[in-house]
């Protein structure tokens, strides 16, 4: 056996990710989510036909990390911007990468209506239950009892409203073909998340409809926890409000097997 075939590369830097150090905090879920998106685009061979729209929020600088065409959207408007792009380039893969505030508070209308039109767009939805970039204010997804800088004493439904489950709300729309909620807080869940992201992109490439993968994601800085405790909090507490699993799947991919 020659040296060339003795070694098989099993891990490397994805083409879809630039070799830039990120600005994300230690223990943040964004870095993992970025890598999963990049690996999936590489494996599908679509990096050069991908156009991405990052959010306003911690991932606003995602164009420094993703190695494909990207355009910044105003806060919450990613799916409206993506709609315009996709209508001009129906043959390209168009993705939005959005946080909970962007997608489920200020951009709720754009989110629901793009999904309901069945835009052939894939959304990666990072839910960390907090406003990261602005320093820990309440997110629409902040769970009950959770402390944020604008929920002194913990989120109280009478004072602050209830955590919103936007993925489940979207799933009732006929334009939406695939919605799955995963987490980036354990190795097993990370592997599941990658499968879900790849399937969501495939769903777009196959022109089936709107697809979304929600990723429960730790924010140790604003949760004021260690990275390890933040992972545990996602796995033990956050999943009570946001149970993991497939929320909707009308792709028919499994049926074909």
């Amino acid at each position, binding site marked *: 056996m020659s040296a060339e075939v003795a070694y098989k590369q099993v891990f490397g830097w994805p083409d879809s990710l630039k070799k830039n150090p990120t600005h994300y905090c230690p223990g943040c879920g964004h870095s993992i989510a970025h890598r999963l998106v990049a690996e999936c685009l590489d494996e599908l061979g679509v990096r050069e036909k991908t156009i991405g729209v990052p959010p306003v929020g911690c991932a606003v600088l995602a*164009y420094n990390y993703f190695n*494909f*065409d990207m*355009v910044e*959207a105003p806060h919450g*408007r990613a799916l409206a*911007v993506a709609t*315009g*792009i996709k209508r001009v*380039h129906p043959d390209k893969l168009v993705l939005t990468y959005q946080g909970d505030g962007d997608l489920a508070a200020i951009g709720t209308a754009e989110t629901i209506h793009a999904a309901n039109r069945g835009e052939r767009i894939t959304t990666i939805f990072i839910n960390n239950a907090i406003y990261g970039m602005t320093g820990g204010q309440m997110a629409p997804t902040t769970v009950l009892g959770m402390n944020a800088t604008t929920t002194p004493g913990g989120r109280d439904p009478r004072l602050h409203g209830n955590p919103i489950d936007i993925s489940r709300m979207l799933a009732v729309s006929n334009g939406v073909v695939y919605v799955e909620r995963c987490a980036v807080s354990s190795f097993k869940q990370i592997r599941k998340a990658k499968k879900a992201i790849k399937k969501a992109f495939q769903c777009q490439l196959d022109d089936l409809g709107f697809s979304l993968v929600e990723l429960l994601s730790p924010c140790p800085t604003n949760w004021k926890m260690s990275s390890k405790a933040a992972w545990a909090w996602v796995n033990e507490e956050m999943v009570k409000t946001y149970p993991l699993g497939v929320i909707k799947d009308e792709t028919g991919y499994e049926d074909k097997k």
Partner: protein
Amino acid sequence: MPSEKMLMRGSNVVGEAAVRAGCRYYFGYPITPQNELPEYLSARMLDVGGTFIQGESEVASINMVLGASVAGGRTMTSSSSPGISLKQEGISYMVGMELPAVIVNMMRGGPGLGNISASAADYFQATRGGGHGDYRTPVLAPASCQELVALTFAAFDLADKYRNPVMLLGDGLMGQVMEPVVFPDFIDLKDLPKKDWILNGCEGREPRALFSMLLGQGELHQHNLDLQKKYDQITAEEQRWKTKNTDDADIIVVAYGTAARVAESAMNDLRAEGLAVGLFRPITLWPYPIAALRELAQKGRKIAVFELCMGQMVEDVVLSVGERAGIYFYGVPGGVIPTPAEVADFLRSVAKGDGKVGRRIEV
């Protein structure tokens, strides 16, 4: 081939002109008095293989325009005053990223929901940027359906040339009035200059990123200086206006859009009475045709400004004319269009200097 002469409503005229000027992506939200435009394009885009989306809001619609523009399409939206307020966020972002698009504002009375008839109360918003940040958008003000055709074509070309949103500023009357028009032939999209900045997938090139957030030391400062250079060039090269009967005039009436049509009728009536009135009609409201108006404000002439609001463009007249001539103002607010007779009364009052109609502006 140019079209046959046809009788058409102003809003539909903009739609047909836009399609012939190569617009293939329209996004908008219904609001009176310009609903005929999205209605027209919802059908017309099907004919030409374009995209029409009735967005869930004006906010969403302008951001769809942003997306279509960054993807390289000729794209537009339209609305009326309250809806244009909602679009200001997206317009500011498009300016920041230097994205071309055409925005049509068929102004109605305000503030708030106001009413649905013609008004010119959004002049400040249109000519001073409108959204947040230090910027301008070229503003074109048509005064007839045939001019709507020409200015719709011009708006798309200016937007592409300067990579900046351009506003077509009409009003409820301009959107509703029916006049005979002839359309030029369809442009060939292939003849347009190539855009080397668009997002279309990075095959065979480095990935591109467009953004308006500039955090690096001095980056935003430099970006604003670069934008200003562009605005200086637009100011120097793109001023448009029309004059009528100005050579021998003692009074120059300054008005744009619908107001200019009323003023022209008043001028004609007064000319028959022997009063030497001329008309100065700005077509670009930004850049304002300052030098041309300044030139007219000589020889002891009086400048009489008439607007369908309580005095907005008059500030640009003051900036243009200064103390060279007496400036008089007559404005009618809130979606009421005065008759030529009322404007003639104003001009007679200016001629006599009796101050009975309108007021003198102290500079």
